[in-house]
C-alpha cells in the first residue's frame, strides 16, 4: 500500500523476524530440567510433610498465575482470587460426590463453571479500575466467604448444597485412581499446573496477550488501535477464573475435606502481595509467589517459627520489592545472579592474571 520501493526493504529485513535465539534454547532446557526434577526427583528427596506442601505450591502457583494475568498483563487488581479458588473447590467437590465422572473431566467442569461465575463476578472490572476495583472484589470475596460459611462445603450429603451436618462418617473427596497416594497426587498436581502454565503462555504470546499489553499501558491507545477492550478484559477474567477454578478442583482432591475457614477473604490480600513480590508480569513470578505463600510458612513452621511473622515479612517484602525491583523477584534474581556470575568470573580472571584487576572493578560497577 505504501511505497513499492519499501517492499524490497521489507524482504531484506525478513530473516530478522524469525531468529532462533540461544536464550530461548537455554530457557527451554532449564524449564525441562526443572519440570523433570519436580516430577521425578523431588518427591523422592523430601519427606511426606513437604510433599503435601509442594502440592499446595503447585495449586497456588496456578492461583498466582491467574492473578498475574489480571494484575501483570491487563492491570486489573483483584482481591477476590481466594474466593474464586474456593468456588472452584466447591464445584469440584460437589461434582465428585454427585457423579462418578473421571477426575480430569470434573476438573474441566469446575474450571468452566468457575470461569462463568468468576467472569460474572468480575463484571464490575469493565467499569472500574485500580483502587475501586480492588475494593469491590474484596467486598464480593467477603460476601462470598459469608455465604460459604453458612452453606458449607459439600461433604457427601444430598440436595443442591450437598452438605449434611449430621453425618458421622464423612467421606473423603476422591482423587483420581492413578493418584491416590500423596506423592502421586503431587505429581498429578504438577502436571495440571504445567498444563495451566502452557495455556496462559499460549495466551500471552499471541493476540490476546498483545491486546492486554496495550490495555495495560493505556486504554485510549488500545481503543484507538481497534482493540475491543471490553472483550479482552472479559477474556482475561475468564482465563484467570478458569485457571483458578481448576486449581480449586485440585485443592479439593488434595485436601479430602474442605472447610470455609481454609479460604479467608484476607488471604487474597496476602496473595496479591506475594504475586507482586514474585513478579506479576512474569510466569516464573507465579512459582516464586507460590513458594513464598506455601513453602515458606511450612518451612518456618518446621523450624518452630510462628507464622504471624510472615504477614509482617510479606508487608516489608512487598514494599522492598516494589521500591527496588518493581518487576518482582522473578525478574531481579536472574539479573543479580548474572551480576554475581560476572563478578565471580572477574575474580577468577584476576586470580590468573594480576593485571586484570582493573577490568573487574569496571565491569561490576
Amino acid at each position, binding site marked *: 500500500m505504501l511505497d513499492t520501493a519499501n517492499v524490497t526493504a521489507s524482504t531484506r529485513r525478513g530473516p530478522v*523476524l524469525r531468529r532462533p535465539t540461544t536464550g530461548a534454547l537455554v530457557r527451554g532446557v532449564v524449564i525441562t530440567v526443572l519440570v523433570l526434577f519436580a516430577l521425578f526427583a523431588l518427591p523422592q528427596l523430601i519427606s511426606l510433610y513437604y510433599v503435601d506442601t509442594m502440592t499446595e505450591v503447585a495449586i497456588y502457583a496456578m492461583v498466582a498465575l491467574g492473578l498475574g494475568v489480571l494484575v501483570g498483563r491487563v492491570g486489573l487488581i483483584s482481591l477476590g482470587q481466594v474466593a474464586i479458588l474456593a468456588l472452584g473447590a466447591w464445584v469440584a467437590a460437589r461434582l465428585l460426590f454427585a457423579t462418578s465422572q473421571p477426575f480430569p473431566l470434573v476438573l474441566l467442569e469446575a474450571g468452566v463453571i468457575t470461569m462463568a461465575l468468576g467472569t460474572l463476578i468480575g463484571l464490575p472490572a469493565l467499569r472500574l479500575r485500580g483502587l475501586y476495583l480492588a475494593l469491590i472484589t474484596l467486598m464480593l470475596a467477603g460476601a462470598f466467604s459469608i455465604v460459604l460459611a453458612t452453606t458449607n462445603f459439600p461433604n457427601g450429603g444430598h440436595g443442591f448444597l450437598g452438605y449434611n451436618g449430621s453425618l458421622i462418617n464423612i467421606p473423603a473427596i476422591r482423587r483420581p485412581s492413578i493418584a491416590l497416594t500423596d506423592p502421586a497426587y503431587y505429581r498429578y498436581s504438577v502436571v495440571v499446573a504445567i498444563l495451566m502454565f502452557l495455556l496462559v503462555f499460549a495466551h500471552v504470546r499471541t493476540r490476546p496477550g498483545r491486546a492486554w499489553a496495550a490495555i495495560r499501558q493505556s486504554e485510549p491507545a488500545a*481503543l484507538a488501535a*481497534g482493540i475491543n477492550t471490553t472483550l479482552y478484559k472479559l477474556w482475561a477474567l475468564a482465563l484467570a477464573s478458569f485457571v483458578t477454578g481448576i486449581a480449586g478442583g485440585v485443592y479439593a482432591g488434595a485436601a479430602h475435606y474442605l472447610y470455609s475457614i481454609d479460604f479467608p477473604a484476607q488471604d487474597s490480600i496476602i496473595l496479591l502481595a506475594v504475586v507482586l513480590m514474585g513478579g506479576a508480569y512474569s510466569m516464573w513470578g507465579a512459582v516464586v509467589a507460590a513458594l513464598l505463600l506455601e513453602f515458606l510458612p511450612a518451612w518456618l513452621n518446621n523450624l518452630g517459627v510462628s507464622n504471624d511473622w510472615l504477614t509482617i515479612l510479606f508487608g516489608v517484602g512487598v514494599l522492598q520489592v516494589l521500591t527496588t525491583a518493581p518487576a518482582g523477584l522473578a525478574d531481579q534474581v536472574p539479573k543479580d545472579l548474572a551480576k554475581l556470575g560476572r563478578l565471580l568470573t572477574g575474580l577468577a580472571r584476576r586470580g590468573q592474571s594480576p593485571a586484570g584487576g582493573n577490568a573487574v572493578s569496571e565491569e561490576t560497577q
Partner: protein
Amino acid sequence: MIEVNDLTVRFGGVTSLDGMTVSFDAGTCGLIGPNGAGKTTFFNVLSGFVRPASGTVRAFGDNLLSIVHFRRARWGVRRTFQTEQAIEQLSVFQNVALIHEHSGLSRASRRADVLDAISFVGLRCDPQASVATLSAGDRRLVEVARAVVGKPKLVLLDEPAAGLPDSETEHMGEVIRQIPEQTGALTILVDHDMSLVSACCSTTAVLDFGKLIASGPTAQVLRDEHVIRAYLGTAEV
C-alpha cells in the same frame, strides 16, 4: 473530506468545544490554537472517547459519531497521542502489527504492511527491538507508523513533534508531508510549532476557547489579526 457541524463538548461547567463548524478537505490540514483551546478534545470526539453534547461529524460520507469507538480504527481513524503511547511491553513490529491485527485487515499482507509502515517513517532500528529501549524520537515514529499502517482514511496527529530536537522535528515534518500521498489519508496535524505547521499544512484551522476563529490557507491564517491576538492572549471573548 470531513465536515464538522456545530460540535459542542462540555465537561461539567467547562465548554471545551463551542459550536465548532469546520471542514477539512484533503491533504494535511493544520489545527492550531492556544493551550486549552480544545484541539485534543476534538480528536477525542473523532476517536469516540468523548461524546459531544451536540453536533455532527461526517467523514467521507459516513456519520463518524455513530461508530463505536473501537470500531473506528477498522473504519480508518488513526491517531497519535499528545503524551506518546507506544506500548512498552511490545516490540516495534508488534506495536505496529497490533492495529493491523485489530482493524480487519488480511493476515497475509500483515508482515509486509507493517514493515512498510516502519520503513516509511524512517525507523532504522531492528523491528524486533523492544519499544522500551528506543529514544523519545523513535517512539514518536513508532506511533506515527501505527497511524499509517493498513488503510487509514483519517490520520490525527496530536503534537507529534513536541519535545523533539530540531533535527528530529524536521524529519517528522518530512514524514507527515508524505502521509497523504502515500496512504491517501486525510491528515490533521495539531502542533504549537508554527514552522512545522507551515511546512506541512496547506490549510489550517484555528481554535480559541473551543470556538473556530479562522480557517483557510495556512499563510493567510497565520497573518490573521484574530489569530495573532488569540496567541497573544488578548482576544475578546
